[in-house]
C-alpha cells in the first residue's frame, strides 16, 4: 500500500464506523517543542489522520491563531529537520500523518530528501497551501516516487472543470475548503455547504475532508453529513494556547 493510501484507508475506516473522520491540525512544536511528541500522541489517539503544521515565517494563508502559533514555534527553534527528528524518535503512531507546509521550507530542505524522511517517519502526504496545481509538478514527482500524496485543496469558488482536475491530481483525500477565507474565521458554515460538499464528493473516488471554520460538534456533524472527514485547525490551536486538554476537546467534537 502506497503511503497516501494509508490516509484514504484511515478515513474510510472511520466512516465505516458511521462517523466522519476527524483530522486534527497541530503546529509542530507548539506550544512547547519538548512537548511536541506527547501532544502529537494525545491528538493522534483521537484523530483518524493528523495534520502536522510546519511553522513558516510568512504564513499568508493562515489566520491570526495559526500565525501566532507558527511564529512562536519558530522563535523556539522549530525547523523541518527538527520535526523529522522528533517524529523519528516518536516511532510509529498508527495514525497516519500529513504535513502542511508552505513551499519555501520544503524547497530549502530539498524535495528528494523530503520524500525520504517523510516516508521514514509516518508522513503519508503533504498539503502545501501556496502551491497551486500549476506549479506543483516537481514536488509531486518527488513525492509520488515514494508513494507520498500531494493533497489538493478545492474551494467553493473552484469551477467544475478545475475541480475535476484537482480531484484527479489529489492523493489520500481531497481537501475541501469550506469558506473562501483564511483559517480561523468564526464558526458558521455557509448555507450551501451541502451542495458544495456533495459536488466535491461526486468529483472523486477519494474521501473528501472539509476544513476551515470547524469548531464545535455540530460543525463536525454538519460537515460529516456530506463529507468523509472534518479538519480541525485553529480551534484546536486555541485549545493548546489556553493550556486545555486537546484530546478531551477532540472527543467532544465526536459527541
Amino acid at each position, binding site marked *: 500500500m502506497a503511503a497516501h493510501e494509508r490516509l484514504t484507508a484511515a478515513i474510510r475506516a472511520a466512516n465505516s464506523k458511521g462517523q466522519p473522520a476527524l483530522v486534527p491540525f497541530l503546529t509542530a512544536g507548539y506550544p512547547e517543542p519538548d512537548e511536541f511528541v506527547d501532544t502529537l500522541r494525545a491528538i493522534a489517539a483521537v484523530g483518524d489522520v493528523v495534520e502536522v503544521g510546519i511553522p513558516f515565517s510568512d504564513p499568508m494563508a493562515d489566520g491570526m491563531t495559526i500565525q501566532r502559533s507558527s511564529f512562536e514555534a519558530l522563535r523556539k527553534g522549530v525547523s523541518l529537520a527538527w520535526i523529522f527528528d522528533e517524529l523519528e524518535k516518536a516511532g510509529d503512531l498508527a495514525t497516519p500523518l500529513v504535513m502542511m507546509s508552505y513551499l519555501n521550507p520544503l524547497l530549502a530542505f530539498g524535495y528528494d530528501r523530503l520524500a525520504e524522511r517523510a516516508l521514514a517517519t509516518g508522513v503519508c502526504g503533504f498539503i502545501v497551501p501556496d502551491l497551486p496545481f500549476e506549479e506543483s509538478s516537481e514536488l509531486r514527482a518527488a513525492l509520488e516516487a515514494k508513494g507520498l500524496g500531494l493533497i489538493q485543496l478545492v474551494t467553493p469558488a473552484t469551477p467544475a472543470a478545475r475541480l475535476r482536475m484537482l480531484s484527479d491530481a489529489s492523493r489520500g483525500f481531497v481537501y475541501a475548503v469550506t469558506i473562501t*477565507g483564511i483559517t480561523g474565521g468564526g464558526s458558521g458554515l455557509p448555507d450551501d455547504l451541502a451542495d458544495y460538499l456533495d459536488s466535491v464528493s461526486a468529483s472523486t473516488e477519494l474521501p473528501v475532508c472539509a476544513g476551515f471554520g470547524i469548531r464545535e460538534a455540530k460543525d463536525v456533524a454538519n460537515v460529516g453529513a456530506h463529507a468523509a472527514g472534518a479538519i480541525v485547525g485553529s480551534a484546536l490551536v486555541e485549545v493548546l494556547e489556553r493550556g486545555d486538554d486537546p484530546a478531551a476537546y477532540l472527543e467532544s467534537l465526536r459527541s
Partner: protein
Amino acid sequence: MTFALPAAEAQALLDATLRGELPDDRGRFGPFGGRYVPETLVPAFERLEQGVREHLHDAGFQAEFQRELREWVGRPTALTHAPRLSEHWGTEVWLKREDLAHTGAHKINNAIGQALLAKRLGARRVIAETGAGQHGVASAAACARVGLPCAVYMGAVDIERQAPNVDRMKRLGADVIAVETGDKTLRAAIDEALREWVTDPAGIYYLLGSAVGAHPYPYLVRELQSVIGEEARQQMIDQAGGLPDAVFACVGGGSNAIGLFYPLLGDDIELIGVEAGGTGDGLGQNAATLATGTPGVLQGAYTMILQDADGQVQETHSISAGLDYSGVGPEHALLQATGRVTYVSANDADSLAALEELCATEGVLTALETAHAYAYAREWSSRNPGKRILIGNSGRGDKDMPTLTRYPVRSGSHGGA
C-alpha cells in the same frame, strides 16, 4: 551571493526579454516568477490575468491611461541636469524626476493604471499594501480619481516612520489598516492584503504596489512603469545629446528600477540597481536581496529572497521603509542571473549623506529610498570620471521627515559649498 545562469541560457533569456517574450505563458522570467498562491486565490489571479490580457494593450484602455498620466499625474516628468552635483562627482549627472509626479513618486504610474483596470474589471473596492506609504497614497488618490473605495494595509512599524503619508492616505479617503502581525512592515502588509482578498476575490481588486508577487503582477507593474524609461531615453537624447553611460535606480520590490531599466535593456548602457545595505552585511541587517539572497518562493513568486538555511524568510533592516522587503521582483532576479543588470547595495549612513549632498547642491529633497541610488552612483562616479549618468529620482523625501529629523543636518555642506 549572486545566482548566475550558464552563458548560453542567459543569452537566450536576455534575447527573449528584448523581444518582449517574457514573462512566458506561465508567468516565468526564465526560472523566476510563476504563481505560488493559495487555491482560494487562483480564480482571482486568473480573472486578473484575463483582464490584463484583454485590457492592458487595448487602444481604449491605453488612451485613458495615457491621458491620466499626462493630465493628472503630470507626465512627462522632467529630466534635470545636475550641474553642481556633477561638479562634485566628476561625472555628468542627470535625474529622472519621478518625485514631480502626482503624490510624489513613481508609484502613481502603477496605481492609476491598475485603478483604471479595477474599474474595467468591475471591482467594488480596492485594497492595497504599502511600505513607505507612497504606494498607499498613490492608491488612495487613484481610487478617488476613478471613484472606488480603497483600504490600505500598512505595517505598524511603517505607520510610525512614515506618519505624514498615513495622514495623507486618510485625507484622500482611504481606510488605513495597521498590520500588527509578522515583521509589521511591508511583507506582513502584503500577507494581510492577500488574506483580505480571499474573502471576496470577485468584488475586491488587489492593487499591488511593486513588480513583485505572483503573475501577472510583475508583468503588469513593469508595463505600467515602463513609461519612466521610455521618457527618460528620449529626454536624454533630446536634452543631454545622447544616452547615458550608466543608469542607477534604487530597488525595493523593483518597480521604479524595472520601469527605468526595461526600455534601456537593448542599449549599450550599464544598468545598476541599488538595494538597501542597512547597517551591515549580516542577515537581518539589510534588505539587499539580490546582492546577498538566494532563490526561493515568497509571496507568490520564485525569486531571490533573504532566507535562512531552513527557508525561513528573514526580517530586513533599512532606514527606508520602501526598500525594507525580503523579496524582489522576479524579473530582476533574471536580469541579475543573466548578468545584464548589476545589483549592489548602499548602506544607511551613505544614503543619508547622499540625500544631504543632493539637497545642498541641487535643492532636491529626495526620498530615503532614492538616496540609495545616489549613494552608490557617487561611489561609482569616483571610479568613472567623465562619464554621463542617469539616476532614477523615484520620489520625494517629504514623507521621510520624521526619520530625517532624527539626523541633524551636517553643517558646512550647504549653500555656496
